[in-house]
């Protein structure tokens, strides 16, 4: 178990707007993971962070990590969720308001002059993003499956082996690491 005053080896960073329908998937999984971390030792070596959006200052949160998992809502990924590795990539879009996780990695490398820690993106399938709209039932179901997958540590095993299998919801809740 790591010293809570220093960064944990693993960072799980989930993000989104809690009041934007399924965009709440990011903060919702943060709440579930945070509760699990407080109640059990399942996530002892993990730091949990959440925010509305990714921005340049989040590059600082990646320092001294062995692995980073970003979690976001996505309308185009497969159900219930997908995991994929990330590569650092500069963001040159026309707005400064939000960054991709790959762009945050690029900022990390820019300011630290070394490679970013291995990072992965878990996208949870989302459907509806209306302001003030509650999370859809389908997204809520995907959220629960993604939560079990993360808590079980499957993402980390797939990251360590670099074998990203299709997710079988029937076998998500494997034994914890």
């Amino acid at each position, binding site marked *: 178990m790591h010293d809570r005053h220093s960064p944990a080896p693993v960072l799980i960073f989930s993000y989104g*707007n809690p009041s934007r329908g399924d965009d709440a998937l990011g903060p919702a999984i943060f709440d579930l993971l945070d509760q699990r971390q407080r109640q059990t030792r399942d996530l002892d070596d993990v730091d949990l962070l959440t925010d509305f959006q990714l921005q340049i200052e989040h590059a600082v949160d990646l320092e001294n990590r062995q692995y980073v998992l970003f979690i976001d809502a996505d309308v185009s990924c497969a159900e219930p969720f997908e995991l994929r590795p990330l590569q650092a990539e500069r963001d*040159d879009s026309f707005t400064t308001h939000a960054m991709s996780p790959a762009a945050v990695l690029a*900022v990390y490398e820019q300011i630290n002059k070394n490679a970013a820690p291995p990072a992965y993106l878990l996208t949870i399938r989302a459907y509806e993003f209306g*302001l003030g709209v509650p999370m859809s039932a389908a997204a809520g179901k995907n959220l629960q499956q993604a939560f079990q997958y993360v808590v079980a540590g499957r993402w980390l095993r797939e990251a360590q082996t670099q074998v990203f299998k299709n997710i079988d919801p029937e076998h998500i809740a494997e034994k914890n690491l």
Partner: protein
Amino acid sequence: MSSALETAANPQDQTRIVIEPLTRVEGHGKVTLLQGKNRNIVQARLHITEFRGFEKFIQGRPYWEAPVLVQRLCGICPVSHHLAAAKATDMIVGARELTPTAEKIRRLMHFGQTLQSHALHFFHLCSPDLLFGFDDEVRHRNIVGVIEDYPEIAKQGVLLRKYGQEVIRVTAGRRIHGTGAIPGGINKSLSLDEIHYLQNDIAQMIDWAQGAVELIKKVFFEQYDYHVAFASIESNMMSMVRADGAFELYHGGLRARDHTGKAIFDHIDYTHYNDYIREGVKDWSYMKFPFITSLGEDDGWYRVGPLARVNNCDFFTTPLAEAQRLEFMAIGKGLPIQSTLAYHWARLIELLHCTEAIAGLLGDSDLMAKDLRTKGELQSSGTGVIEAPRGTLFHHYEVNEEGIITKASLIVSTTNNNQAMNESIRKVANQYLDGHRLSEALLNQVEVAIRAYDPCLSCATHAIGKMPMELNLLDENDVLIDRLEKRVTGQINRTL
């Protein structure tokens, strides 16, 4: 200064060019250019649909929830909405004057918010092509050469932002979803430890902010004529100023000046903003088009934000920012600065002011006092206006006897700049559109013009991945005749 946007004759004879970002979430920006027979761009339309539902989101909720609730409206500047809502609810609870502690902590929070927001532009200076654009290799080489003398700017930009976030965390209680401001005041003062924590780094922040202003001046002057002319438009400007004319972000009267600097109105009590500003509606946009009532819809549009604020104020209260303001204003030779790219310069002068102002406030013992809240006789409505990082932000609520908000009216900063952004895009498009064939230069320069205003395109939510753009050229029969696509890798392909 009449607008040609809505005056295109015989629209059936025009050619429409659509620049559309491809995102996972519907509702982000889209640019449509309408080309006349003489190949001039006669209309430019930046479509922003993200502001739909803001007012409905607030209506039906108790007024005391508003300062927390409205932070959900915007992921990039939630504190601006938080404070505007707090000011509106101050009026509702009859708090005519806040305690010194409450006002100073709110101001500190607001300086932190503006600092962290503006620091993003400092960071982006390390990629000057994003902010200033390049239309030839010589310019590119010269400006990159200037930037190379500042190898630490990216890190400084990140750490300045981080510092601003810490100011917000300390004053609002949390990094996000803070509850610092409440109707009639604030919910906590600062401890001596918190003040010392923020004081530890503030001298460094001031130093970096000074460096940022010096750097952007060098970049601006490196290609002075080009930067002055790019997307430059003659506009009115509106902002808040203090009673003595000083630069003001938190509380003051409204001042509007025309493109020559002549006063249109001054020191207006913002609770009567409806008497001076109206909102036009276009059938092609969800976003409204505010204009100064006395000038009418065609001539009354205006700009807000850093460029307007620095142009409009008589002085800064902090010495380093004031010295920079004087240099800035000197290029106008007595007239307001109308260069759209000067937004970036003005933004960094404001960044410097924020660091100085934070340093000053951190030495004020009122921050630790315990008199946090005032109230008076309940009112049926309230208006809160602040200068958000991107410009003037209006919140107006009406409540019933149970304290439920029955009506909410918002004008966000980007809406205030709506027409001005279209005008700047049109200016750029006329310069870079070569006949009926789209070019990478056109697409890039339209993006540069948009970035100068830093519109709140993603108020609603983050967007996964970058925001690639698609540039379509349609003829008068809506037949696609050319298309450029900017992929997530930044690669631009002709896809037709």
